[in-house]
């Protein structure tokens, strides 16, 4: 019999969403931590500020999630000591990819979105799979509620084809407040059907003036 190693993982659920605009980025995750049909806690933050203009939202296995956050935070501290500056969002995106791929054969069971502003001050969203393949996009959703949210975002935001020449920016035409409202709507909707999403949604808005946090209550059932 093959060696069973499924016990090393647990699915603690959670949903992450991010939207990039011309001069802002909205990144959000719910605060429910559950396993199976039971809830561990209704107030667990899955969002981690990695740099001044770079935020990561993650879902999946909480143990791996925390290990990944600590790893990246430590790597960013070293970067600051060596370069005397904050890491840029595209650089952090590559670091996250490498960090995930480093554990390709014993993966971090985490589904991440990285959001922030690039060096030009433009909003950016990077979306990942558990083993590190990644892509810069205009918007994304990850986690247990992603399947419910992605089609809505596709419908509302219509990202340009990556095959277009000349390449078009993958930023959304929405204003910051419109994007925040859309995020609130998709979370409220995902909460209706996804049992792993609910309780609260934590929304981070990153723009030139810094990072702002918002909390919205969701259904608790």
């Amino acid at each position, binding site marked *: 019999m093959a060696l069973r190693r499924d016990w090393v993982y647990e699915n603690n659920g959670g949903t992450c969403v991010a939207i990039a605009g011309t001069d802002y980025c909205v990144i959000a995750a719910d605060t429910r*931590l559950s*396993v199976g049909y*039971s809830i561990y*806690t209704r107030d667990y933050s899955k969002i981690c500020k990695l740099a001044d203009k770079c935020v990561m939202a993650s879902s999946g*296995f909480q*143990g791996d999630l925390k290990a990944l956050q600590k790893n990246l935070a430590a790597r960013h501290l070293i970067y600051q000591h060596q370069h005397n500056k904050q890491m840029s969002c595209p650089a952090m995106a590559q670091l996250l990819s490498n960090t995930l791929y480093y554990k390709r054969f*014993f993966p971090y069971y985490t589904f991440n979105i990285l959001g922030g502003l690039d060096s030009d001050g433009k909003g950016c969203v990077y979306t990942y799979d558990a083993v590190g393949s990644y892509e810069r996009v205009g918007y994304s959703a990850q986690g247990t509620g992603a399947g419910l949210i992605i089609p809505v975002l596709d419908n509302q935001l219509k990202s340009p084809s990556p095959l277009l020449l000349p390449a078009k920016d993958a930023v959304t035409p929405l204003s910051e407040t419109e994007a925040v409202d859309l995020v609130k709507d998709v979370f409220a909707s995902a909460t209706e059907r996804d049992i792993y999403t609910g309780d609260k949604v934590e929304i981070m808005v990153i723009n030139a003036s810094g990072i702002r946090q918002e909390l919205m209550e969701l259904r608790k059932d």
Partner: protein
Amino acid sequence: MEMVAVKDSAISENGTERTLYPYVTGTSVIGMKYKDGVILAADMGGSYGSTLRYKSVERIKHIGKHSLLGASGEISDFQEILRYLDELILYDNMWDDGNSLGPKEIHNYLTRVMYNRRNKFNPLWNSLVLGGVKNGQKYLGMVGMIGTHFEDNHVATGFGNHLARPILRAEWREDLSFEEAVKLLEKCLLIAKITEEGVTISQPYALKTYWGFSAFQNPSKGAEGSW
């Protein structure tokens, strides 16, 4: 260090020299914050499968000056964890600097120990509850077998998470007095005990039903082409 080396060589030779399932286990631990502290509760049974093998196992121990640790799961693994913590506290005391490890530090240490052991595919088969007070700050956290961890105002391991926490969510308050807290825990434990020791099945009886809703009286009304 020597013991670890011996264990590692045993692993490479046999491949499966690790906890594959627990032997002697303890059941749920329940913990909650109250007005001036943190309270933990657990029974003293040590089960060998379905046999109540040990009847006076202390599954709640104090760690250092500020913390309480409660454990469910494999009793021997819990005792090993206690040895780790004894050493940790001892080495911390040897600094003799007036500092001491609080519940937050102990909890963080335990999360790393549990997660590292699961990364070696050799888990400590426990769910741990860590509570404590330091500098007037209440702390209550939980760690699972594979390193899942979190803090909350009330926690429960194993079946307690199914049975006790719904009660705690409904009745827990920040300003619970000690007496009220004990009462609430007893209520939770009673339910945990009743359901874990067996079931009672009542005589069958019909449920009260109400068929008076208009949808029941004319179920096909508006069904065709209404949209």
